[in-house]
Each structure stands twice: as C-alpha cells, then as structure tokens.
C-alpha cells in the first residue's frame, strides 16, 4: 500500500472520535471517505494532513511513518472545505505561496504557478483577487495551490459542499479529471453518497469512528457488509409480507407486477421526467418503487408489485 | 509602493532614535574634550535640576558657561519632588532642587534625602532662611496676599477685602478661592503663619474662612488665574511679577493684607546620592558666590525677595517693607506640617468627610 493507516485512534475530551481505524490507499487512486457528519471522517483526514496527531497507531507513506511530521514538512496537501484562500493575495500569489518554502526562486515559482493555473483552466485569472472569482474558480485555485507543491497525497475535505447543486455536479467531474491528469493519490471526504460514487475508485464507509466497509462503489452498493452501509448508500425498502416475513431490498430490485404477490396503497407520487417514483404504504411501512414515464397510477389506488428475478 | 513608504517611515524613526542617543553621546564627548582643553577647573557632566518653573534657562546657561556642566531642568511641584524622591529609594534622578516651599526641604532633610553643601559664601546668608547644617538654603521668599476681580466685586456690590479678618465676613460667601495647603506651599504658609499669629483662635479663624471658600483648588496657580478669569472674586495667592501680567490682561488688583503677609522661603538644595554630586555642589556654591547671579534670579522671578536671604545686593530693592511680612518661626514649618495638615483636613471637610 502507498499510504497506510494502521490502527489509529483519536479522542477529544473522553469521546473517542476515531476508533482503531486501519486503511490502505493505493498509489494513484482516489478514495472517498463517506459517512454522516460526526462519523470521524474529517478527524481522520486531519490526522493524515498532520493537523491532528493520532493518540495511537501509525500513518505510513511509502512505508515511512509520517505521523510525527508537522503539516509543513509532511508531503501531503489539503484542500479545505472553505478553500482557505489567502484573502490578501491574488490568485497567482496564492498558488505561488507554497513554492516559496520549496526553495523555488521567485521567477521559477511564478512560472510553475502559472503552469498549474493553466492546467486548471484559470490562466486568465492570475491577477484576480480571490473575492472576485466564482465558487468553482476558487475551488480550482485551491486545487492548483495544493497540487503545485507536488504532494504525494492530496486530501480534499468536503470540497463541494460550498457550491450550488449544478456546480457541484460539474466540479466533481473536474476533480476526477484533474486527479486523473496528475495521477495523484487522493483522499476525498464527503457525506454525499452520489458524489462518492461518481468520484471514487474506492469508497470507505465510516460510521461512529470506525471503517465499516471499503470497496469499489459497486461492491459497497451491491454487497453492503451490514445494514448501516446498505441503508446509508441508497434507499432500502423494507416491509412485512402477508406471511409476516420481513423483506429488505433496494427499489431497483422491485417492479410492478399485476399479479403481486405483494400490494400496497399509493400514497404519493413524483414525476421526474423519464421516470416516476411511487410511494406505497405496505402495512406499517412505506416503500418506493420506480416506474417508467408512461405508466401512471392514481393516488389511493391499490397496487401490486413483486421482486425482480 | 505604499508599503515601501511605510517601511521608510519606520526606518527613519528607528534611525532618528538611535541618532538621538548617539548625538547626545557625541555632544558629551565634544564638550568633555573642549572643557579639558580650555580650563582644567571646569567640571564635566550634566546637571539635572528640578525647578519650580521653566523660566530659569538664562541663569542655568550662565552656569554652563562659567563652570562647565550642561544643565537640564524640569519643573515640578514640591509634593511631586518629595513623592518621587521617596519612590526612587535613595537614587534620585535629579541633582539640584531649585525652588519650592521650605517645609518640603525640611521634610526631605529629615528623611535623609538632601546633601550637605558647605561653602564660604554660606556665611553671608541670613541664618533664618537656611539650614544651620547647610543641607538647604533659600533663593528668596514667596509672599502671600489677595487678588481680587474688580468687575465681579462691583457686580456683587462688594468692597475689596483689606485684611485677613475681612475674608471671614459673611458677604464673601462662596467668593474666595484658596489652594489646598497640602498641595500649595504658599497656602500652607498662610495656614501656618496665621496659626502662629492668632494662637488659639487660629483654627476658629480657618473654620470661619472655610464658610466663604468656594473650594480648595488642587493647583497652586488656580486662585490667581481663576480670579483673572472671573470664576471667583477673591483669591489667596502668592505675589510675584506674574500677577502684574494678570493685572494687564484682566481687571484685577493685588492686595497686601493689613495684618501682614505670610511668607515661605523658597529652598535650594542638592540631593543626597545624586549622580552629579560634584556639579550639584558647584552649582550651589557658584549661585551664592556672585551677586550677579542673584540679580539675574530677581529679574527672572520678577521679585527681589532674594534680599531677605542675602541683604545688600547692589541695585536691588525690596518691593515692600520687611515689616509688612508676618513674623514667623520658620522652624515650625517643617515640624508642624503633618499635624497641621491633618487637623486642617479634618476641620475643613477635606477627604469628603463633610
């Protein structure tokens, strides 16, 4: 493994936030740490970045323990949730800043920073003040600023949470592209499962300070190791059969069948263009089914459905 | 660009501070060598003087010219000087004390803060106005009288008071300003001298006077300036040339009370353990050894009371007859100070115990 977390733990005021977490990241891959807020994912990221020191455990980068290195000497760079761009410097100066500490001359640093700004499509914004550019542009400045120092690992802390929905979709593609372009080992922290699925080579699900499962998006979605993971990633329909047997499965594993064997009352429906969502009341439970754009049902109607083969 | 200007501004400040220090050192070095060349009797160093006013520059300049040391001086009231001396714990920042009520000098001597200065000309000085052991001398006396604002008196239909006794007349209620005797050596002299004059009836007098006093100001110059400004009608004040200036600028008159004027000698002394002891002693000796100095002093002070200290200085004459002064036992000024001020404070409702 390129980067390896071995059994790391962290507690704040007697509350254990990260519990014996072990995780390996391969060179050049992008791994998403996914979890609800408070699950310990940002704390984990901060420990990798060097802003927090683990109470126990090791962080190995290429086999070397880096857990005692302070952030300024650790070959790891972070893009912060707020981007943390320096408000008194223009875009170019922001990107140049880290190079100063790597022994670049001013001229070299300028050239290198300009090159990276071109790479993130901000060549024309060198002189702009950070307050004058858009959220997406700020995001890219932050990326360029982190990447220009040639870190071995790039850390992204909820990088899209400050953007609006449309931009979020666009930027996650861009991040993916940039990551591929630089082939940089990346850890991406998010609470948004869709984001994780799109961006990640592998996803690590965190819950309550522990890593519950690590795998490709398909693996964790299709073969969740436990109920929490299953519920957290996508929707789970759970209902009682007439034989009092509980069935839990994903909506896409179900379909409408004239013949049943199950049925429920249509309580709500949403038209979403090329498909519709139907919410059925089945006994005490509510489930959701996806239907194609053509077939419609009336509210209050009794509808039959079955599991896909 | 602006950053650079700021940096330059900072640099200039720093440099000028350094230069200031350097320059002083250079000056000292300069004057040192010059003195050494000129005259071997000249004394080196700087003399630090605490004076009662800023006006003595010409006198100090002459000292520098004739004897050598540069003089730096600052004005301070006697109370400030005493407090500072006590806080300094025996290492005074100044060398010579020039002016201020003699009672403070007595206090200072008592506390071992003064240096004995023996010199020949001391024998020519009036014994009552100097310390018998030569710890302090005086450079004249402050005499006390009244200043009245004629305009206000007229407006209120009042006669100007002629005597100390007049001041207690009920019609002057709220019209008299006097400085707190703890602050003002001048007004302390009034209290002490009138107590000596009136004997047992003295305290009663001040209690009566208290009824007419609007308040006791905490600065010595307030009575005269506030009368001139028309804030009050009558002030109990020192009398010197500055009052003549006030008479120019406002409709005020100076009154010499009938019973006589209280007075207090103005002290001169060298501080014990001062840095420039030699220069300090030289200054005192120089000052009294040449009548020209005393004449110049009389000119600066705008009064000739130095004649009381050293009678018969050619070309000087007293502005008043010596018998216009009250008879005072000056030795009591120091010894009774604490007791008198305490009693005064209690009776006159000072400290808020009205």
């Amino acid at each position, binding site marked *: 493994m390129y980067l390896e977390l071995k059994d790391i733990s962290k507690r704040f005021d007697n509350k254990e936030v990260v519990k014996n977490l072990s995780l390996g990241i391969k060179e050049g891959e992008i791994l998403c740490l996914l979890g609800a807020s408070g699950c310990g994912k940002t704390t984990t990221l901060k420990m990798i*970045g*060097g802003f927090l020191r683990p109470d126990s455990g090791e962080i190995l980068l290429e086999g070397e323990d880096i857990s005692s290195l*302070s*952030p*300024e*000497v650790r*070959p790891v*760079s972070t893009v*912060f949730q707020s981007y943390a761009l*320096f*408000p*008194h410097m223009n875009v170019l100066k922001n990107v140049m*800043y880290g190079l100063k*500490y*790597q*022994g*670049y001359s001013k001229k070299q640093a300028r050239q290198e920073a300009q090159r990276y700004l071109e790479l993130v499509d901000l060549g024309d914004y060198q002189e702009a003040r950070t*307050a004058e550019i858009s959220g997406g542009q700020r995001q890219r400045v932050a990326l360029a600023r*982190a990447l220009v*120092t*040639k870190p*071995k690992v790039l850390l992204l802390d909820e990088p899209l949470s400050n953007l609006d929905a449309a931009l979020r979709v666009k930027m996650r593609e861009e991040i993916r592209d940039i990551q591929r372009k630089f082939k940089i080992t990346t850890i991406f922290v998010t609470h948004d499962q869709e984001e994780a699925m799109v961006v990640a080579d592998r996803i690590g699900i965190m819950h309550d300070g522990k890593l519950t499962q690590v795998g490709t998006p398909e693996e964790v979605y299709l073969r969740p190791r436990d109920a929490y993971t299953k519920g957290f990633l996508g929707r789970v329909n759970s209902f009682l059969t007439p034989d009092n047997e509980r069935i839990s499965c994903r909506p896409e594993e179900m379909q409408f069948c004239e013949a049943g064997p199950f049925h429920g009352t249509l309580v709500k429906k949403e038209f979403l263009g090329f498909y519709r969502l139907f919410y059925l009341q089945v006994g005490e439970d509510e489930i959701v089914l996806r239907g194609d754009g053509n077939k419609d049902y009336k509210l209050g109607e009794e509808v039959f459905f079955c599991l896909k083969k | 660009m602006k*950053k650079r200007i700021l940096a330059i501004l900072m640099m200039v*400040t720093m440099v*000028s501070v350094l230069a200031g220090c350097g320059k002083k050192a250079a000056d000292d070095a300069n004057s040192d060598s010059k003195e050494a060349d000129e005259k071997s009797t000249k004394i080196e160093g*700087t003399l*630090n003087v605490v004076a009662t*006013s*800023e006006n003595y520059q010409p006198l100090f300049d002459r000292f520098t010219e004739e004897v050598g040391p540069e003089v*730096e001086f*600052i004005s301070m*009231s006697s*109370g*400030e000087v*005493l407090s*500072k001396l*006590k*806080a*300094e714990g025996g*290492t005074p*920042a100044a060398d010579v004390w020039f002016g201020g009520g003699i009672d403070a000098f007595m206090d200072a001597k008592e506390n071992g803060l003064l240096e004995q200065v023996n010199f020949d000309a001391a024998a020519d000085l009036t014994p009552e106005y100097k310390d018998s052991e030569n710890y302090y001398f005086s450079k004249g006396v402050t005499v006390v009288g009244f200043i009245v604002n004629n*305009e206000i008196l007229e407006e209120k239909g009042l006669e100007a008071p002629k005597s100390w006794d007049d001041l207690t007349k009920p019609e002057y209620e709220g019209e008299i300003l006097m400085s707190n005797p*703890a*602050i003002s050596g001048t007004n302390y002299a009034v209290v002490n001298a009138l107590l000596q004059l009136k004997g047992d009836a003295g305290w009663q007098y001040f209690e009566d006077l208290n009824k007419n006093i*609007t*308040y006791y100001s*905490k*600065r*010595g*110059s307030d009575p005269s300036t506030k009368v001139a*400004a*028309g*804030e009050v009608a009558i002030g109990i004040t020192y009398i010197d040339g500055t009052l003549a200036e006030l008479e120019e*600028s*406002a409709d005020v008159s100076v009154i010499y009370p009938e019973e006589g004027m209280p007075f207090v000698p103005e002290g001169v002394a060298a501080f014990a353990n001062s840095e420039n002891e030699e220069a300090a002693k030289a200054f005192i000796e120089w000052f009294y050894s040449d009548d020209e100095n005393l004449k110049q002093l009389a000119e600066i002070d705008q009064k000739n009371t130095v004649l009381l200290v050293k009678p018969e200085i050619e070309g000087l004459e007293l502005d008043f007859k010596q018998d216009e002064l009250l008879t005072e036992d000056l030795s009591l000024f120091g010894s009774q100070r604490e007791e008198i*001020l305490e009693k005064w404070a209690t009776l006159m*409702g000072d*400290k*808020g115990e*009205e």
Partner: protein
Amino acid sequence: MKSKQNNKRAQVRSARFFDILDKLIISGLVILVLAFIFYPILCVILRGVNVEGSFSLKVYQEVFTKNQKLLWNSAYVAIITALLSTVLAVGIATVVVFSGRLKGFLMGVLLVSMVSPPFITSLSYIQLFGRRGSITHGLLGLSLDPYGPIGVIIMQTIFFASLNALLLIGMMEKVDQNLLQAAADLGSDNNDTYFQVVLPLTLPGVIVCFLLSFVRSLADYGTPVVIGGRYENLSTEIYMQLIGYANLEKSAALNTLLLVPAIVVFILYRLLMSKGNRLLQGGTPLKEEEMQHYRPRGLVYGLLLLPTVIFYGMMLLQYGSIFVNSFSKQQKGVRTFSLEPFLQMWSRRKDTFFRSLVYALVVALVGTLIGMLISYYIERRKLKGGKFFDFLVTAPYMIPGSCFGIGYILAFNSEPIKLTGTAAIVILNMIFKQLSITTKVTSAAFTQIPEELDMASADLGAKRLQTLKDILLPNLRSSFAVGFVNNFTSAMVTAGAVIFLVNAGQKIAVFTLFDAINSGKYAEASMISTVLILVTVLINVIFLRLLKGKGGESHVSGIKGY
C-alpha cells in the same frame, strides 16, 4: 522538478531556526510583561502593605474607617458617568452608523475627539460654561457654578463617549444585513428592528462600554482635580496623597483597591466580548447607503439624535475654543488676535515637540507590534496561562496613570534594571500602559480570520511564524492601524503615568502643557494643545493613508475603537 521530499532536509533545518525564534519571542514577551507590568504593579501593592519596613494593613484600615465617603463618592459618580456615557455613545453610534453620506465627517470628528490633551479640555469647558463662561455668562447671562460632582459627571460622560461610540460603531457595522432585511421582510418597522435586532446583538458591546467607562471614571483624577471643586474621591485622594503629602504607602493602598474593580471588569469583559463576537460572526455587513433605510424613525430617532447633536456641538465648541485661545491674548478682559502664544511656544517648547514625536512613533510601532504578538500567542496559539497574561496586559490601562508611573520608579530605581532618569523608562511606560488596546483589538480581529488559513499555510510548508508574517499580519492591518493610532495618540497627549518618570532630559510636549497650565498660562497651554492635536491628527491620517493601500482590509476587518 523539485519535490517536497528533496527539500525536507533544508526544511527541517529552517524549521529548527523558526522553532527557536518562536521560543525566543514567547519568552521575550513573557519576560517583558512580567518585568514591565507585573513587577511594577507588585511593587505598588507591596508598598501599600509595608509600613516602616514591616508588613501591616494599617493603611487599609485607615482607608476603610476614615475614607468610606471617598469610596462612595467614587462609586456613585462612576456608575452615573458610565450609564450616561454609554447611553450617549449608543445615540452617537446609532446616528453615525445610519447616517449615510455624513458618516465620514462624523467619524472624523469622533476620531479627533480621541485626541484630547489632559486638563485643557476641562479648562475650555470652564471657559465656555463656567461662572464667566462665554456661553453661559456671555451669551445667556447666567452665572453657573460648574464645580462639583455634576461637573465631573458631565465632563467624564463626554470624554468617555468618544471611545464608547467608536467601539459600538464597530459592532453595529458588523450586524448581518440579512438580519435587517429579514426583519423588514417580516413586517417589522425600523424602530422594532432597531430594538429587537440591532441593540440586542450589540448588547454585549453596550455592557462593555458601561464597564469600561466605570473603571475609567474610577481611575480618572484629571477631571475631578480640575472641576471637582470640593468633591473628593479615591483618585483625587491618590493625587493628594502623592502630590500633597508624599505618602506613597497610602496612595499605593488606594491604587491597590482600584485593582479590585479592574479585575471584576476584566473577567466580565472577556465573557461579554466572546459572546459579542459570537453573535456578530459571519454576517455580511450592509453597505453605507443601504444602512440609511434601516435608520430608526420618529421620536426614537429624535431621542438618539438630540444628545448626539449636543455632543458634536460640544466637541466643536471645545476644540474651537482651544484654537481661539491659542491665537489670542486678553487685555483688560478684551480678547484680541495674537501670535504671542505661538511665538512663546515655538521659542521655548519646540524641542519638546520633536521629542514627543520621536517617543510617540517608537511607542506606536514597538507597542503595536508587541501588543499584536501577545494577542497572537494568546488567541491563536492558546498558550497556557493566556488568560492571566491577558489580565496582566489589561491591568495598566485600568489603574490610574500615576500609580503605574510610581510603580516604575519603585521597580526600576536600582540594579539590575536601573532605568530611572532615562528615556527608556518613559517609552516603556507608555508602551505598556496602552498595550491592552492593541491586544484587545487584535484579538477581536483574530476571531474574524478563519483558522483554516493558518492550516492551509502550514500545509503549504510555512512555519507558524512565517504564517504569522505572510498570512495573518497582512489581514490584521486594521488592528495595526487602531493600535498605532491609539498608541501614538496616547503617547502624544496623555501624561498621567509619565509625569513622575520624565526627567530634565526627557521633557515632552505634554509635560510642558502641564507646566503652562500650572503657571496659569492658558493661552500658551492652548497653543501647545492645538499643536499637539494637529500634529497627532496629521500623523495619524498620514499613517492610515499609507496603510490603506490595496490590502486585505475589505475582507477581514477588525473592530474599530476598543
């Protein structure tokens, strides 16, 4: 291409240098504060319990038995002054904040009014409103007696209002515009918005003003000495004990008593300010033009406007009369134009102005730097004992100047640090007396700079001190400006602490002002004041211009004033 790895060794080496430098600065600051604040104050406290060489509480007994009236006098005047001055400041701040285009002018007057040389302002009020005041007597034919507690209350109310108003303006400007808009949107009229949104959000600041004025009133002796008349309180008694009776023990004991309210106020201040900053964090301030829409209306505004107009009127009269005095001379009660005061001043005092200027610049630069560094280590590095340290830094501001001055003489009159009679003791005293303003302003500004900036900078390879230099200081320009202006101004025009420290070789302009006043030369005193005011304002303006540039000011603003 260089990689981060390759540079590691060089970085570790420079890292070590910065670690050492960091430790040196911390220990330097601790030593400075202990030596130049803690030790002198300790000397004063010890002096108060040391009667003729042995420990005794006799002096305190005396104070509590004989001088109760003084305690009461101090307390009631301080409470009334604090109340009135705070209310006045709320009025001024409201009018200024919502004033739209007039704001620049109103702020300017307010800033100038901070430059108020001692005694002379009180004297100018006597001249205007006293028995023969040119307004009360000359215009209205009245003969009022301004001397007494009421005079003290009025004067202090006006003095303290400037600083209070500046503090409140700083807070009101930070009220989130969305809140005002939301309130308007919900149907609240401007007065409701003012009372239910603006005031509650600035309430911690309002209380801070009250506390600050309370302590300042307790410690102020200049005002009661000039216009107190027969009114006596703790601070005039301290003055009397020092100047009149040369009784160091008693004045030390009284000063120690004044430390008690200072400690209480300090603790409350810390609590309230952190609350205030929390209330106002993260908002988007309104633009000046938009502010006008939310101005309180009708009677409410009238009630706020009236005292403000009176205040501004008084300020103009006060500075006007000082100015007129300095260019005129009186002959038999008739005032004529004259350059005499100027010529007198110029020929005799000019050196003292240059000295004042140099001292004040040193104090402003060094003091502001030290203050900002202290605030950095307390707020950003969260050093252990930071709160106690912060209290030490605040203490000199809250106790009477004379006490701090005497403390310096007591502390530094012998080896190892013998400073009496030097310029250093004067400058150091000025620096440490005012330090807390800089640290308070900087601390407030730090809460506005996200800590992620520090982390980002560290992540990019900067050591903490490099982060301080490259990232934090540029965003603290406005605190630097406030610190500089305050330090410079107070070094130029306040004299309380240094009056005992100044020796013949260090005569500064404000000292000669004292001398002129004490010898009754009001015209010359006015001239000295005029020059002091002009020079101070001029330097401040030049400095602010230089600093303004195109810096990060617009992004991260510190509160103005306190």
